């Protein structure tokens, strides 16, 4: 039985859970409860994955920054502090949930939820392995870009509702910055989309199969020389999109105290934090799918040789998560090295340089796809 809710994801984990639930359903349970339970379970699994990624991300950030700065980072809670995120989570949960006087209470409470919901929504389109996903969205990358854009609304809401001038500044900067960089981000992603001829992340990954799992990645100049500049544009744009240094203006500590998060504390504050790491990871994963082979790696190629289905899935999952964290590490490395740019420099760079260059990349990449690629034996 196919429920309309699940028709979007016919082969997804959600529908698999649904099918399995039908087989174990006792008679007294009404039929409508089954798809509902399936969705709730799937959401639970999705949230667990996102939370784990976020926790690993915060731990990694501390360790990376620590080692860059000649210190160890957290060392006390668990081996090399690996339980630190849990300790922090417990601390943040137990903190008082404060709403400042004069704040717009409903908006203030809604904003972190909206921010987190949008990033969870975007995560739906992220396939963890070729056969393990919650929704096989044909326009996957559109879905991700659209959902992550809505975090801006949450941030602006938070900045406005806080009734603090610093928060308002942070929110306005976020709005200006994100809008300015979404344009080059989207355009830069068009280049690999053209090369792949697909919007679906799994299909994009499949397009890069072969070549020992490495040599057919889209990033290589022999696939399309316009991919490398497109990737640089993409990477700069995701730094700005995720408010990471050197584009951390919305929360610029030395200027705006904590930007749009100034008035937040406890678990609500941590929602913004989780969103940041989840978004970073998600964008890095998107980058890996469109430029660095997605599921394809020597590991996956080896696993395919064994012809064991589970092994291939695990290898693919390990590959994509590793690539995501490699991107995360790069972003952290930059954060702990570079100073912050100024708002006018951010705007100038976004509109005057990145967007035209991205457009040029699309033109060049498209022309290459039409004129050169069909004649290259290794591309087809």
């Amino acid at each position: 039985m196919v429920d309309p809710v699940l028709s979007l994801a016919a082969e997804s984990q959600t529908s698999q859970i649904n099918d399995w639930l039908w087989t174990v359903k006792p008679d007294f349970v009404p039929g409508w409860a089954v798809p509902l339970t399936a969705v709730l379970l799937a959401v639970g699994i999705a949230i667990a994955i996102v939370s784990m990624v976020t926790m690993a991300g915060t731990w990694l950030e501390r360790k990376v920054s620590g080692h860059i700065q000649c210190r160890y980072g957290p060392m006390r809670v668990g081996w090399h502090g690996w339980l630190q995120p849990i300790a922090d989570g417990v601390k943040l949960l137990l903190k008082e949930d404060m709403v400042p006087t004069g704040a717009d209470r409903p908006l203030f409470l809604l904003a972190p939820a909206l921010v987190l919901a949008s990033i969870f929504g975007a995560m739906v389109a992220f396939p963890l392995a070729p056969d393990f996903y919650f929704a096989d969205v044909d326009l996957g990358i559109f879905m991700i870009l659209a959902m992550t854009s809505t975090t801006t609304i949450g941030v602006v809401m938070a900045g406005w509702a806080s009734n603090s001038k610093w928060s308002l500044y942070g929110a306005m900067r976020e709005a200006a910055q994100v809008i300015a960089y979404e344009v080059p981000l989207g355009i830069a992603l068009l280049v690999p989309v053209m090369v792949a001829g697909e919007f679906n992340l799994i299909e994009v990954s499949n397009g890069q199969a072969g070549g020992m799992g490495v040599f057919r990645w889209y990033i290589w100049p022999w696939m399309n020389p316009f991919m490398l500049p497109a990737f640089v544009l993409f990477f700069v744009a995701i730094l700005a999109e995720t408010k990471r240094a050197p584009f951390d203006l919305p929360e610029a500590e030395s200027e705006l105290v904590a930007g749009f998060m100034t008035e937040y504390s406890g678990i609500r504050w941590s929602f913004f934090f989780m969103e940041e790491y989840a978004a970073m990871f998600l964008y890095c994963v998107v980058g890996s799918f469109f430029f660095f082979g997605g599921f394809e790696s020597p590991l996956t190629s080896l696993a395919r040789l064994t012809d064991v289905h589970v092994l291939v899935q695990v290898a693919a999952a390990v590959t994509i998560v590793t690539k995501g964290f490699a991107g995360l590490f790069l972003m952290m490395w930059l954060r702990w090295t570079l100073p912050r740019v100024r708002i006018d420099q951010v705007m100038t760079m976004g509109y005057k340089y990145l967007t035209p260059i991205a457009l040029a990349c699309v033109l060049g990449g498209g022309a290459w796809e039409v004129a050169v690629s069909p004649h290259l034996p290794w591309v087809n």
Partner: protein
Amino acid sequence: MTSTETQAGSITRTEGGVLPTGEREFMLDVKTSDLEINMGPQHPATHGVMRILCRADGELCTGAQPHLGYLHRCAEKIGESVEWLQYLPYTDRYDYLAAMNNNLGYSMAVEKLMGIEIPRRALMIRTICAELNRIGSHLIAFGTYGLDIGAFTPFLYMFREREWMMALFEKICGARLTYSYIRIGGVFNDAPPGWLSEVERFCDTFDVKWQEYVDLLMVNHIFVKRTANVGVIPKDMAIDFGLTGPMLRGSGVDWDLRRDEPYELYDEICREGVFEIPLGSGERGTLGDCWDRVYVRVMEMREAIKIVRWCLDNIEPGPVIADIPKTLKIPPGEAYVGIENPRGELGHYVVSDGGKVATRVRVRAPSFVNLAVLEAIMPGTLLADAIAIIGSTDIVVGETDR
């Protein structure tokens, strides 16, 4: 600027033909005014409890007014009620990043009244300590400036070297921040065995690290873009505001008390041409911009190392404190001594009526004087630039308020 004027200003802006007719009429009813924001007293970039009242039009800072007094501890008044030597620890507390230099300034003022001769070894150790403390102070200035601009890591690197410098001071006097080591008549005690050779090791290490910091932050493209052409203080403005120290030299004015009004050993050091006085040159932007001021501090660290090396080469055994009684009775009179602190000219004006207690201890604090220029250079900059400018003045609030 009153609010009516602001309003009128914004109406003129909208009437300039920017907005379509309907919207322009709508805007006539909208009251607009600049945003007044309180930067501080609790703000990560004000380097202590200082408050800067900013008037901002969006990201544009249209006015700024520093408000002081949050760290006022009546240091000068205390000077009138404690004995001469007892006041020494209070000098540690005004510029707590350069306590050795403060000790030195006060001691020299009192010594001038007393007219005593300081043993040569004491002068050597004083110079070493003052210059090491200059390095420590500039490390903080440069590191926190990176922090203001958004680079977190260089700050911690600089703390690593500063930590060693503080450990050196801990070895010589037992304190890490408030030393009270340079006394009236000399220094409190001789350097412990091996201390001088450790200072030499510090100098060797620091030379390498210094280059690292320059490569990491000073010539970083983003850093240069953020600081060059920002907060320009022209030469004559710097002189008009009575700026001293790196703030003055950043604007290209060649004035350093160590050379121009030499005290203690600096006369001899200058004659031997041991060190140079770095000046801002507008190398990356305009003369007197934030980058120039930071550049002067960074170069001064290397020059300070040269002075320390010279002292290490020339130091000889001998007494480290002149023969002075425990309870000082200073002959009546008045004396002013200005010395080159890391932040500029630290002046001590002391008046004695011949008793055990000073009649007046007046401190000319460089941070306080340098701060005044903020109001003149901050309007018209972006909010992020305002932070860069505050950072480049390198104020220590303990000193502005005393």
